[in-house]
Protein backbone atom coordinates (compact mmCIF):
# COMPACT_ATOMS: atom_id res chain seq x y z
CA UNK A 1 0.00 0.00 0.00
CA UNK A 2 1.29 3.44 -0.87
CA UNK A 3 1.70 6.27 1.59
CA UNK A 4 -0.46 9.33 1.26
CA UNK A 5 1.48 12.27 -0.19
CA UNK A 6 2.82 14.39 2.68
CA UNK A 7 0.86 17.51 3.57
CA UNK A 8 2.57 20.89 3.47
CA UNK A 9 1.35 24.28 4.63
CA UNK A 10 -0.84 26.26 2.25
CA UNK A 11 1.43 29.23 3.01
CA UNK A 12 0.69 32.95 3.21
CA UNK A 13 -0.29 33.27 -0.44
CA UNK A 14 -2.94 30.55 -0.57
CA UNK A 15 -5.33 33.15 -1.99
CA UNK A 16 -3.50 33.19 -5.31
CA UNK A 17 -4.52 29.66 -6.08
CA UNK A 18 -7.81 29.31 -4.26
CA UNK A 19 -9.20 32.85 -4.14
CA UNK A 20 -7.26 35.02 -6.59
CA UNK A 21 -9.59 37.99 -6.16
CA UNK A 22 -8.55 38.15 -2.50
CA UNK A 23 -4.90 38.12 -3.62
CA UNK A 24 -5.71 41.20 -5.68
CA UNK A 25 -6.19 40.07 -9.26
CA UNK A 26 -8.79 38.80 -11.64
CA UNK A 27 -7.98 35.69 -13.65
CA UNK A 28 -10.73 33.06 -13.69
CA UNK A 29 -14.16 33.55 -15.17
CA UNK A 30 -15.75 31.46 -12.44
CA UNK A 31 -14.49 31.84 -8.89
CA UNK A 32 -15.21 29.51 -5.99
CA UNK A 33 -16.35 31.55 -3.04
CA UNK A 34 -18.24 31.92 0.24
CA UNK A 35 -21.80 32.12 -1.16
CA UNK A 36 -23.35 28.65 -1.34
CA UNK A 37 -26.88 29.74 -2.16
CA UNK A 38 -28.78 31.16 -5.10
CA UNK A 39 -32.30 32.60 -5.11
CA UNK A 40 -33.75 29.15 -5.82
CA UNK A 41 -31.98 27.25 -3.02
CA UNK A 42 -34.39 25.67 -0.55
CA UNK A 43 -33.99 26.23 3.18
CA UNK A 44 -33.45 28.81 5.88
CA UNK A 45 -30.86 31.39 4.85
CA UNK A 46 -28.04 31.67 7.33
CA UNK A 47 -24.74 33.48 7.58
CA UNK A 48 -21.89 31.83 9.46
CA UNK A 49 -19.18 34.26 10.46
CA UNK A 50 -16.30 34.41 12.86
CA UNK A 51 -12.63 34.88 13.39
CA UNK A 52 -9.64 32.61 13.88
CA UNK A 53 -7.26 33.06 16.82
CA UNK A 54 -3.77 31.78 17.49
CA UNK A 55 -2.39 30.53 20.81
CA UNK A 56 -2.03 34.01 22.35
CA UNK A 57 -5.32 35.36 21.07
CA UNK A 58 -4.10 37.14 17.95
CA UNK A 59 -6.72 37.43 15.21
CA UNK A 60 -5.36 35.71 12.11
CA UNK A 61 -5.85 37.40 8.77
CA UNK A 62 -4.40 34.88 6.33
CA UNK A 63 -6.63 31.85 6.89
CA UNK A 64 -8.67 29.98 4.29
CA UNK A 65 -11.68 27.94 5.38
CA UNK A 66 -13.72 25.53 3.31
CA UNK A 67 -17.09 24.13 4.33
CA UNK A 68 -19.05 21.08 3.19
CA UNK A 69 -22.59 20.45 4.29
CA UNK A 70 -25.86 18.70 3.59
CA UNK A 71 -28.79 20.62 2.12
CA UNK A 72 -31.84 21.75 4.07
CA UNK A 73 -33.29 18.23 3.81
CA UNK A 74 -30.14 16.67 5.25
CA UNK A 75 -28.82 15.24 1.98
CA UNK A 76 -25.29 15.61 0.62
CA UNK A 77 -24.93 16.37 -3.09
CA UNK A 78 -22.76 13.31 -3.67
CA UNK A 79 -23.59 9.89 -5.15
CA UNK A 80 -22.45 8.20 -1.94
CA UNK A 81 -25.42 9.66 -0.06
CA UNK A 82 -28.41 7.36 -0.60
CA UNK A 83 -30.50 8.32 2.41
CA UNK A 84 -34.11 7.58 1.52
CA UNK A 85 -36.71 10.33 1.37
CA UNK A 86 -34.29 13.23 1.33
CA UNK A 87 -34.35 15.06 -2.01
CA UNK A 88 -31.35 16.64 -3.64
CA UNK A 89 -31.59 20.37 -4.22
CA UNK A 90 -30.42 21.17 -7.76
CA UNK A 91 -29.57 24.67 -6.57
CA UNK A 92 -27.28 23.67 -3.73
CA UNK A 93 -23.90 21.94 -3.85
CA UNK A 94 -23.09 22.52 -0.20
CA UNK A 95 -19.49 23.54 -0.64
CA UNK A 96 -17.73 26.89 -0.38
CA UNK A 97 -14.55 28.61 0.65
CA UNK A 98 -13.89 31.88 2.45
CA UNK A 99 -10.84 33.86 3.44
CA UNK A 100 -10.45 35.80 6.65
CA UNK A 101 -10.43 39.50 5.82
CA UNK A 102 -6.97 41.08 5.69
CA UNK A 103 -8.15 43.98 7.89
CA UNK A 104 -10.77 42.62 10.28
CA UNK A 105 -9.92 38.93 10.27
CA UNK A 106 -13.60 38.07 9.80
CA UNK A 107 -14.69 35.25 7.50
CA UNK A 108 -18.29 34.71 6.44
CA UNK A 109 -20.32 32.14 4.52
CA UNK A 110 -23.80 32.64 3.08
CA UNK A 111 -25.58 29.30 3.10
CA UNK A 112 -28.66 27.45 4.33
CA UNK A 113 -29.08 25.63 7.58
CA UNK A 114 -28.45 21.95 6.89
CA UNK A 115 -30.87 19.22 7.90
CA UNK A 116 -29.90 16.36 10.16
CA UNK A 117 -27.94 13.52 8.53
CA UNK A 118 -27.98 9.85 9.40
CA UNK A 119 -24.79 8.83 11.16
CA UNK A 120 -23.27 5.45 11.87
CA UNK A 121 -25.43 2.68 13.26
CA UNK A 122 -28.56 4.58 12.40
CA UNK A 123 -27.88 7.34 14.90
CA UNK A 124 -28.91 10.77 13.72
CA UNK A 125 -26.31 13.49 13.62
CA UNK A 126 -27.47 16.97 14.59
CA UNK A 127 -27.40 19.56 11.81
CA UNK A 128 -23.79 20.51 11.21
CA UNK A 129 -21.35 21.94 8.71
CA UNK A 130 -17.92 20.38 8.15
CA UNK A 131 -15.03 22.83 8.07
CA UNK A 132 -11.44 22.52 6.89
CA UNK A 133 -8.89 25.17 7.84
CA UNK A 134 -5.55 25.92 6.21
CA UNK A 135 -3.06 28.76 6.60
CA UNK A 136 0.56 29.66 6.92
CA UNK A 137 1.89 27.77 9.94
CA UNK A 138 -0.66 24.95 9.69
CA UNK A 139 1.22 21.91 8.44
CA UNK A 140 -1.80 19.66 7.98
CA UNK A 141 -5.27 21.07 7.27
CA UNK A 142 -7.50 21.04 10.36
CA UNK A 143 -10.95 19.44 10.36
CA UNK A 144 -13.74 20.55 12.62
CA UNK A 145 -17.56 20.72 12.67
CA UNK A 146 -19.91 23.64 13.13
CA UNK A 147 -23.09 22.83 15.09
CA UNK A 148 -25.89 25.29 15.92
CA UNK A 149 -26.83 26.77 19.30
CA UNK A 150 -30.57 26.60 18.59
CA UNK A 151 -30.35 22.81 18.17
CA UNK A 152 -29.61 22.04 21.81
CA UNK A 153 -31.76 18.90 21.92
CA UNK A 154 -30.26 17.42 18.75
CA UNK A 155 -26.76 18.39 19.84
CA UNK A 156 -27.26 16.61 23.16
CA UNK A 157 -27.68 13.27 21.39
CA UNK A 158 -25.25 13.85 18.52
CA UNK A 159 -22.90 10.85 18.30
CA UNK A 160 -19.88 12.95 17.38
CA UNK A 161 -20.32 15.61 20.06
CA UNK A 162 -20.78 12.82 22.57
CA UNK A 163 -17.47 11.26 21.60
CA UNK A 164 -15.72 14.21 23.17
CA UNK A 165 -14.81 13.05 26.63
CA UNK A 166 -14.24 16.56 27.97
CA UNK A 167 -17.70 18.08 28.13
CA UNK A 168 -16.27 21.57 28.54
CA UNK A 169 -14.75 21.29 25.07
CA UNK A 170 -18.00 20.47 23.31
CA UNK A 171 -19.14 24.08 23.23
CA UNK A 172 -16.21 24.94 20.94
CA UNK A 173 -18.15 23.22 18.13
CA UNK A 174 -21.36 25.19 18.59
CA UNK A 175 -22.00 28.34 16.58
CA UNK A 176 -24.00 30.91 18.51
CA UNK A 177 -27.17 32.20 16.88
CA UNK A 178 -27.21 35.98 17.27
CA UNK A 179 -30.29 38.09 17.87
CA UNK A 180 -29.64 40.49 15.02
CA UNK A 181 -30.22 39.29 11.47
CA UNK A 182 -28.00 40.03 8.50
CA UNK A 183 -28.96 42.80 6.06
CA UNK A 184 -30.39 40.19 3.67
CA UNK A 185 -32.57 38.75 6.43
CA UNK A 186 -30.40 35.69 7.06
CA UNK A 187 -29.97 34.39 10.57
CA UNK A 188 -26.42 35.01 11.77
CA UNK A 189 -24.30 32.48 13.62
CA UNK A 190 -20.94 33.27 15.13
CA UNK A 191 -18.31 30.58 15.03
CA UNK A 192 -14.84 31.54 16.22
CA UNK A 193 -11.97 29.09 15.85
CA UNK A 194 -9.14 28.89 18.37
CA UNK A 195 -6.17 27.02 17.03
CA UNK A 196 -4.46 26.69 20.39
CA UNK A 197 -4.72 27.66 24.04
CA UNK A 198 -7.75 28.45 26.22
CA UNK A 199 -10.91 27.00 24.69
CA UNK A 200 -8.95 25.41 21.87
CA UNK A 201 -11.42 24.30 19.20
CA UNK A 202 -11.98 20.58 18.91
CA UNK A 203 -10.31 19.31 15.76
CA UNK A 204 -10.93 15.86 14.38
CA UNK A 205 -8.74 13.12 13.04
CA UNK A 206 -11.05 11.85 10.34
Amino acid sequence: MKRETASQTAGPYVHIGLAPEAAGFDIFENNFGPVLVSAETRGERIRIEGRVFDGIGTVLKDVLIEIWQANAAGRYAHPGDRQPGKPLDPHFRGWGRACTDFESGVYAFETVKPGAVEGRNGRTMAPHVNAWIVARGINVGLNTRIYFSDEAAANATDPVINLIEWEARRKTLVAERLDAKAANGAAVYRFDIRLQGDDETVFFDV
Partner: protein
Amino acid sequence: MMELQREPRPDAEFLMRDTTSHPLALTPAYKTSVLRSPKLALISLQQSLSEVTAPVFTADELGEDDNDLILNYAKGGLPIGERIVVHGHVHDQLGRPMKNALVEVWQCNASGRYRHKRDQYIGALDPNFGGCGRMLTDADGYYAFRTIKPGPYPWRNRVNDWRPAHIHYAISGDGWVQRLVTQMYFEGDPLIRSCPILGVVPSEEQIRGLIALQDSAAFVQLDSRAYRFDIVLRGQRATLFENHVQKAAA
Protein backbone atom coordinates in the same frame (compact mmCIF):
# COMPACT_ATOMS: atom_id res chain seq x y z
CA MET B 1 -36.01 -9.84 18.95
CA MET B 2 -32.59 -9.42 17.34
CA GLU B 3 -32.01 -9.09 13.67
CA LEU B 4 -28.87 -8.86 11.64
CA GLN B 5 -28.79 -5.62 9.77
CA ARG B 6 -26.23 -4.47 7.27
CA GLU B 7 -25.02 -1.02 8.14
CA PRO B 8 -26.44 0.98 5.24
CA ARG B 9 -23.90 3.77 5.03
CA PRO B 10 -21.11 4.59 4.63
CA ASP B 11 -20.30 1.69 2.37
CA ALA B 12 -16.92 2.93 1.28
CA GLU B 13 -14.75 4.28 4.03
CA PHE B 14 -11.31 5.76 3.72
CA LEU B 15 -8.30 4.21 5.37
CA MET B 16 -7.29 5.70 8.68
CA ARG B 17 -4.77 8.46 8.09
CA ASP B 18 -1.21 7.34 8.78
CA THR B 19 0.03 10.32 10.75
CA THR B 20 3.64 9.22 10.26
CA SER B 21 3.26 10.26 6.61
CA HIS B 22 2.75 13.90 7.60
CA PRO B 23 4.45 16.67 9.55
CA LEU B 24 3.51 17.18 13.16
CA ALA B 25 1.46 20.28 13.93
CA LEU B 26 4.16 21.80 16.11
CA THR B 27 7.45 22.16 14.21
CA PRO B 28 9.50 24.92 15.90
CA ALA B 29 12.05 25.21 13.07
CA TYR B 30 9.12 26.50 11.02
CA LYS B 31 8.38 29.29 13.46
CA THR B 32 4.87 30.21 12.39
CA SER B 33 3.66 26.76 13.45
CA VAL B 34 4.43 27.46 17.12
CA LEU B 35 1.28 29.47 17.88
CA ARG B 36 -0.90 27.93 15.18
CA SER B 37 -0.62 24.28 16.19
CA PRO B 38 -3.34 22.68 18.31
CA LYS B 39 -1.87 21.41 21.58
CA LEU B 40 -4.68 19.01 22.41
CA ALA B 41 -5.07 15.63 20.74
CA LEU B 42 -7.29 15.42 17.68
CA ILE B 43 -10.54 13.58 18.40
CA SER B 44 -10.65 10.45 16.23
CA LEU B 45 -13.90 9.89 14.37
CA GLN B 46 -15.21 6.85 12.61
CA GLN B 47 -16.35 8.17 9.25
CA SER B 48 -19.95 9.03 8.49
CA LEU B 49 -21.55 10.45 5.37
CA SER B 50 -20.06 13.80 6.34
CA GLU B 51 -16.54 12.46 5.84
CA VAL B 52 -16.97 10.06 2.89
CA THR B 53 -18.75 12.52 0.62
CA ALA B 54 -17.28 15.64 -0.99
CA PRO B 55 -18.19 18.24 -3.59
CA VAL B 56 -18.30 17.09 -7.20
CA PHE B 57 -16.80 19.45 -9.75
CA THR B 58 -17.58 19.62 -13.45
CA ALA B 59 -15.53 20.69 -16.45
CA ASP B 60 -17.92 23.52 -17.31
CA GLU B 61 -16.95 25.29 -14.08
CA LEU B 62 -13.41 25.73 -15.35
CA GLY B 63 -12.15 27.89 -18.19
CA GLU B 64 -10.33 26.56 -21.22
CA ASP B 65 -7.00 28.17 -20.26
CA ASP B 66 -7.26 27.54 -16.53
CA ASN B 67 -4.48 24.93 -16.73
CA ASP B 68 -2.20 27.01 -18.94
CA LEU B 69 -0.30 29.39 -16.67
CA ILE B 70 1.74 30.60 -19.63
CA LEU B 71 -1.35 31.97 -21.33
CA ASN B 72 -4.03 32.44 -18.66
CA TYR B 73 -2.78 35.86 -17.56
CA ALA B 74 -0.82 36.91 -20.65
CA LYS B 75 -1.52 40.57 -21.47
CA GLY B 76 -0.21 40.84 -24.98
CA GLY B 77 3.14 39.16 -24.27
CA LEU B 78 4.50 35.95 -22.84
CA PRO B 79 5.74 35.52 -19.26
CA ILE B 80 9.51 35.40 -18.73
CA GLY B 81 11.27 32.28 -17.53
CA GLU B 82 11.78 28.60 -18.19
CA ARG B 83 8.81 27.03 -19.92
CA ILE B 84 7.81 23.72 -18.35
CA VAL B 85 5.03 21.16 -18.38
CA VAL B 86 4.11 19.55 -15.07
CA HIS B 87 2.10 16.37 -15.22
CA GLY B 88 1.32 13.20 -13.32
CA HIS B 89 -1.34 10.95 -11.90
CA VAL B 90 -3.49 11.18 -8.82
CA HIS B 91 -4.13 7.77 -7.27
CA ASP B 92 -5.41 6.65 -3.93
CA GLN B 93 -3.30 4.56 -1.56
CA LEU B 94 -4.69 1.35 -3.03
CA GLY B 95 -3.72 2.35 -6.57
CA ARG B 96 -7.17 3.38 -7.73
CA PRO B 97 -6.99 6.27 -10.23
CA MET B 98 -8.66 9.37 -8.83
CA LYS B 99 -10.77 10.57 -11.70
CA ASN B 100 -12.40 13.98 -11.73
CA ALA B 101 -10.24 15.21 -8.85
CA LEU B 102 -9.93 19.00 -8.70
CA VAL B 103 -6.25 19.99 -8.80
CA GLU B 104 -5.54 23.64 -8.03
CA VAL B 105 -1.99 25.03 -8.25
CA TRP B 106 -0.31 28.32 -7.42
CA GLN B 107 3.22 29.64 -7.48
CA CYS B 108 5.50 32.65 -7.73
CA ASN B 109 6.98 33.80 -11.03
CA ALA B 110 10.50 33.21 -12.34
CA SER B 111 11.82 36.03 -10.09
CA GLY B 112 10.44 34.46 -6.95
CA ARG B 113 7.66 37.05 -6.65
CA TYR B 114 4.02 36.22 -5.98
CA ARG B 115 1.17 38.15 -7.54
CA HIS B 116 -0.32 38.89 -4.12
CA LYS B 117 -0.97 42.22 -2.49
CA ARG B 118 0.90 41.10 0.62
CA ASP B 119 4.13 39.98 -1.09
CA GLN B 120 6.77 42.70 -0.72
CA TYR B 121 9.75 40.85 -2.19
CA ILE B 122 12.01 42.96 -4.43
CA GLY B 123 11.82 40.38 -7.23
CA ALA B 124 9.90 41.87 -10.14
CA LEU B 125 6.30 41.11 -10.94
CA ASP B 126 5.79 39.77 -14.43
CA PRO B 127 2.90 41.57 -16.14
CA ASN B 128 2.09 38.44 -18.12
CA PHE B 129 2.07 35.93 -15.29
CA GLY B 130 -0.72 35.36 -12.77
CA GLY B 131 0.58 32.23 -11.09
CA CYS B 132 -2.48 30.05 -10.62
CA GLY B 133 -4.21 27.28 -12.48
CA ARG B 134 -6.69 24.47 -12.00
CA MET B 135 -7.87 21.35 -13.75
CA LEU B 136 -9.78 18.10 -13.30
CA THR B 137 -8.05 14.74 -13.62
CA ASP B 138 -9.21 12.48 -16.44
CA ALA B 139 -10.52 8.91 -16.15
CA ASP B 140 -6.97 7.64 -15.50
CA GLY B 141 -6.37 10.21 -12.77
CA TYR B 142 -4.02 12.10 -15.10
CA TYR B 143 -3.47 15.84 -15.00
CA ALA B 144 -1.14 18.22 -16.85
CA PHE B 145 -0.51 21.93 -16.87
CA ARG B 146 1.93 24.31 -18.50
CA THR B 147 3.74 27.02 -16.62
CA ILE B 148 6.94 28.97 -16.00
CA LYS B 149 9.39 27.41 -13.57
CA PRO B 150 9.06 29.35 -10.27
CA GLY B 151 12.13 30.96 -8.75
CA PRO B 152 13.46 30.55 -5.20
CA TYR B 153 12.93 33.41 -2.77
CA PRO B 154 13.89 34.50 0.76
CA TRP B 155 11.32 34.48 3.54
CA ARG B 156 11.16 35.68 7.11
CA ASN B 157 11.82 32.70 9.30
CA ARG B 158 15.49 32.99 10.11
CA VAL B 159 17.18 35.90 8.37
CA ASN B 160 18.69 33.88 5.56
CA ASP B 161 16.09 31.19 4.92
CA TRP B 162 15.21 30.58 1.29
CA ARG B 163 12.39 28.59 -0.18
CA PRO B 164 13.43 26.16 -2.88
CA ALA B 165 11.48 26.57 -6.11
CA HIS B 166 8.06 25.03 -5.54
CA ILE B 167 4.49 24.86 -6.75
CA HIS B 168 1.60 24.70 -4.26
CA TYR B 169 -1.12 22.12 -4.79
CA ALA B 170 -4.62 21.69 -3.37
CA ILE B 171 -6.41 18.48 -4.33
CA SER B 172 -10.04 17.56 -3.76
CA GLY B 173 -10.97 13.90 -4.22
CA ASP B 174 -14.07 11.76 -3.71
CA GLY B 175 -14.31 12.21 0.05
CA TRP B 176 -13.93 15.16 2.38
CA VAL B 177 -11.16 13.32 4.24
CA GLN B 178 -9.05 13.18 1.07
CA ARG B 179 -8.65 16.96 0.90
CA LEU B 180 -4.93 17.69 0.72
CA VAL B 181 -2.66 20.69 0.37
CA THR B 182 0.99 20.18 -0.39
CA GLN B 183 3.96 21.59 -2.31
CA MET B 184 5.94 20.17 -5.19
CA TYR B 185 9.70 20.71 -5.50
CA PHE B 186 12.14 20.26 -8.37
CA GLU B 187 14.75 17.54 -8.64
CA GLY B 188 18.29 18.82 -8.10
CA ASP B 189 17.43 22.06 -6.29
CA PRO B 190 20.21 22.64 -3.72
CA LEU B 191 17.84 24.59 -1.43
CA ILE B 192 15.75 21.49 -0.78
CA ARG B 193 18.09 20.24 1.94
CA SER B 194 17.96 23.42 4.02
CA CYS B 195 14.29 24.35 3.73
CA PRO B 196 12.59 24.53 7.15
CA ILE B 197 9.18 23.93 5.58
CA LEU B 198 10.20 20.84 3.65
CA GLY B 199 12.22 19.86 6.72
CA VAL B 200 9.05 19.23 8.74
CA VAL B 201 8.22 16.20 6.56
CA PRO B 202 9.07 13.24 8.79
CA SER B 203 10.95 10.87 6.48
CA GLU B 204 13.26 10.82 3.49
CA GLU B 205 10.75 8.68 1.67
CA GLN B 206 8.00 11.25 2.14
CA ILE B 207 10.32 14.10 1.14
CA ARG B 208 11.21 12.23 -2.05
CA GLY B 209 7.51 11.98 -2.74
CA LEU B 210 7.32 15.79 -2.97
CA ILE B 211 10.17 16.17 -5.45
CA ALA B 212 9.19 16.13 -9.12
CA LEU B 213 11.62 14.40 -11.45
CA GLN B 214 12.57 15.80 -14.80
CA ASP B 215 10.75 13.76 -17.43
CA SER B 216 12.56 14.03 -20.75
CA ALA B 217 10.08 11.71 -22.46
CA ALA B 218 7.45 14.42 -22.03
CA PHE B 219 9.57 17.33 -23.25
CA VAL B 220 7.96 19.40 -25.97
CA GLN B 221 10.66 19.65 -28.61
CA LEU B 222 12.09 23.15 -29.15
CA ASP B 223 9.59 24.44 -26.57
CA SER B 224 9.37 23.15 -22.99
CA ARG B 225 10.95 20.77 -20.51
CA ALA B 226 8.71 18.57 -18.35
CA TYR B 227 8.47 17.39 -14.76
CA ARG B 228 6.45 14.50 -13.40
CA PHE B 229 4.67 14.72 -10.07
CA ASP B 230 2.39 11.94 -8.89
CA ILE B 231 0.05 12.39 -5.94
CA VAL B 232 -1.40 9.80 -3.56
CA LEU B 233 -4.63 10.49 -1.67
CA ARG B 234 -6.20 8.52 1.17
CA GLY B 235 -7.24 5.01 0.10
CA GLN B 236 -10.89 4.06 -0.13
CA ARG B 237 -12.06 0.53 0.50
CA ALA B 238 -15.41 -1.16 0.14
CA THR B 239 -16.82 -2.30 3.43
CA LEU B 240 -16.88 -6.09 3.35
CA PHE B 241 -18.52 -7.72 6.33
CA GLU B 242 -19.30 -4.93 8.70
CA ASN B 243 -22.61 -6.29 9.89
CA HIS B 244 -23.71 -5.48 13.32
CA VAL B 245 -26.42 -6.82 15.54
CA GLN B 246 -29.08 -4.30 16.33
CA LYS B 247 -32.15 -4.54 18.46
CA ALA B 248 -35.24 -4.14 16.36
CA ALA B 249 -37.84 -1.73 17.56
CA ALA B 250 -40.30 -3.44 19.85
